[in-house]
């Protein structure tokens, strides 16, 4: 078990602008054949943080290693109030295609999507000041050999959601409702409920946008083909040339549409997807707090019962049983104190975590938006080049 006091100092570290650690996940490589095959990814780390033995190093990891890491972190930190970043989703269909050796656009897209997700997952994990120092994280990043992770079912986001829903049911079944003396928690819980709904809407909206962009790319390519055919059948030389140029410009624009669709997807869609899953983890820690409170209450109720029983025994004068009762009470008093400390600690942790979360999301969103705007500007500048080149061709028809 980890003592909580040592964490307090670490938490007050400097701001995250100068977070000096960069992780990239790259070079997906298929290892093995058939259904036992898997993808190995190169995880490269560049950092000047003294925790690490070197400043630049890399290791090879497979998807189940990431899931294993998450599973360990979740089991250690979730129940004491830390928002552990969720692991990327499993996909049986996507992975099977890769295993079977189907090298087509959709399986390449799948690998790229996964690679990007793994990278974001690691960056989010190491940005957490507590998780960064966790020995499992350090081992994951530095160790050349990693024991195979088993039971990686644990705590996929689907699993987490199930757990959260079960906890919510349990709360509703509680005989004594939690007396929320701290309005902050009630407000925040509502806030995250709302945020969940809004993020899902945004995510759906972006997915629709990505879909239409891909459609535009397909339609542009089709139009380019038909323009080329027009150019080929055209007798008038200059017009024929201009139409062929038109076809070429449209093909180039098609490529721009594809790039833009990728930007829409990899920047926004995945960001929003990540945050939808993060919110599930946040809801999880809130529920753990309620569980912790419940445990404390249960201990208190048990103590009360034991005290009543002790009073009865005293009245009936049964010295042996009395001593036993006194011992049990002492133990329970300890449990109640611990329960109260646990509850206070998790409440404190959650407050810090939520604050961290709110700051992080501003930083995250800003960084993504800037990248996105850069891609938008670049696209327009490319278009300007294409139109500038085409104009004289169009004017030359006569």
């Amino acid at each position, binding site marked *: 078990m980890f003592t909580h006091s040592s964490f307090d100092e670490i938490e007050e570290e400097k701001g995250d602008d100068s977070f000096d650690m960069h992780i990239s996940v790259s070079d997906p490589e298929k290892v093995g054949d058939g259904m036992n095959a898997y993808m190995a990814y190169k995880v490269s780390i560049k950092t000047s943080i003294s925790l690490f033995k070197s400043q630049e190093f890399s290791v090879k990891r497979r998807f189940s290693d990431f899931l294993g890491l998450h599973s360990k972190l979740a089991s250690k930190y979730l129940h004491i109030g830390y928002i552990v970043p969720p692991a990327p989703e499993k996909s049986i269909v996507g992975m099977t295609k890769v295993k079977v050796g189907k090298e087509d656009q959709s399986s390449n897209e799948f690998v790229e999507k996964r690679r990007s997700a793994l990278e974001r997952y690691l960056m989010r994990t190491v940005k957490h000041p507590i998780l960064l120092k966790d020995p499992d994280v350090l081992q994951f990043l530095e160790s050349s050999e990693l024991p195979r992770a088993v039971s990686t079912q644990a705590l996929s986001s689907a699993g987490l959601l199930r757990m959260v829903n079960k906890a919510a049911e349990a709360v509703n079944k509680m005989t004594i409702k939690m007396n929320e003396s701290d309005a902050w928690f009630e407000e925040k819980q509502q*806030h995250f409920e709302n*945020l969940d709904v*809004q993020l899902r*809407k*945004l995510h759906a*909206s*972006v997915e*629709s*946008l990505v879909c*239409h*962009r891909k*459609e*535009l790319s397909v*339609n*542009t390519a*089709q*139009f380019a*083909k*038909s*323009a080329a*055919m*027009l150019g080929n*059948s*055209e*007798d*008038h030389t200059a*017009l024929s040339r*201009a139409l062929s140029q*038109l076809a070429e410009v449209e093909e180039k624009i098609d490529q721009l549409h594809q790039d833009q669709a990728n930007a829409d997807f990899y920047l926004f869609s995945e960001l929003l997807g990540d945050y939808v899953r993060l919110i599930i983890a946040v809801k999880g820690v809130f529920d753990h707090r309620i569980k912790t409170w419940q445990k404390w209450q249960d201990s208190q109720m048990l103590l009360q019962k034991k005290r009543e029983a002790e009073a009865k025994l005293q009245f009936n004068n049964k010295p042996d049983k009395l001593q036993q009762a006194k011992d049990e009470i002492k133990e329970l008093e300890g449990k109640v104190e611990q329960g109260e400390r646990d509850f206070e600690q998790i409440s404190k942790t959650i407050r810090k975590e939520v*604050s961290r979360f*709110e*700051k992080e*999301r*501003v930083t995250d*969103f*800003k960084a993504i*938006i*800037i990248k*996105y*705007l*850069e891609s*938008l*500007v670049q696209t*327009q*500048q490319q*278009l*300007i080049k294409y*139109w*500038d080149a*085409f*104009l004289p061709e*169009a*004017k030359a*028809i*006569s």
Partner: protein
Amino acid sequence: MMEEVKEVTSTLSVDIQSIKVTEVVKDGDTLTFLIESEKLSGTGVYHVDRTYDDFEWLQQHLFSQEEVSGIQGVIFPPLPVKAQVNASAKVIKQLGILGLGEWQAYCKAMETFVRQIAAHSILGKNNAVEIFLTSSDPPGRQRVRKNIFNRLSQAMEGMRKEGHKDVDEFFQTERDHNLVFTGCAKTAAERFLDVVQTEQKIAVACGHFSTALRLCVEQGEDPDKLDFSKVCVKLSEVFDSIQKNVTSVAENNVSTLGLGLDLESRYQEAEKEMLYRRTCKLVELETTRRNAEKAKPVKKAAMEEVKKAAETEFDHISGVAKEEIARLQAARVKMLQQALVQWCEKQLLTAKESADQFNQHLQAFRGMA
């Protein structure tokens, strides 16, 4: 009171370049087009309102000019399909790019139709054109007498005449080329429409995203909340800009190249119809020749007369057709050039404006503490 159309040719009293369809008015299910044209005398402007039926009236009059020699060799400026409020899916498909939006492209196409007719060396002389443009009363909705180009009856005869071998190499080549080209032009116009419609979908999706972002603004004075709200608001402004850009790109597409490809496609069809009429006449001619040959002495002289008349008419038609084909070729190259140049210039301007706007947003975000 309806003016009677005299079968007299006349010169148009308006400046053809000034003819404009200024707007379209919806009255229940009817669309009324307001047409303006400047008097050549410089003394003012004609304002008339016309429905689709009036346009058809004009077209029918022109079709039925049997007294004009070789009229069947004319490539008639194509009239767009009838626009309807709450049109069926079939009509919408037929309209193509002209059916988009609030009929701006459609008005332009109708305007082009009138201008082309007015400027035509044969058709422009028909009095019906003057009446159409200047008469304050609608020209009338009665059915004009049967026109010689009843497509329906020709279609019923079957298009098997379409493949009938020509006697003139020029025309055979032209027919072969037109067959290929009509298909290409139609496909290009349809695919361009697909592009525009997808752009419109993207614009709508951007609007939804922008709205959803504004709903993420959170209440409270918590600085982190305020920061995030600010990010959401600014991002929604970005997507408003993206929406504006895509909408602009789509509008540019429609108003220049879209109209151009649509007109090109319809003109190729019009030429196809003319060539088919001529081919039908050729078949008729060959029949009269056979009849003259096979005729019994008693009928021979009469058959010869019929044959000679058919030959003369066919020659006239071919003569007019050759001129029309040359005229169309020159006109369409000019039209497509104009469309491509305008299209390129408009898209270039839009791209520059958008690059500026996106850059401004980018600087604003970078500057955000």
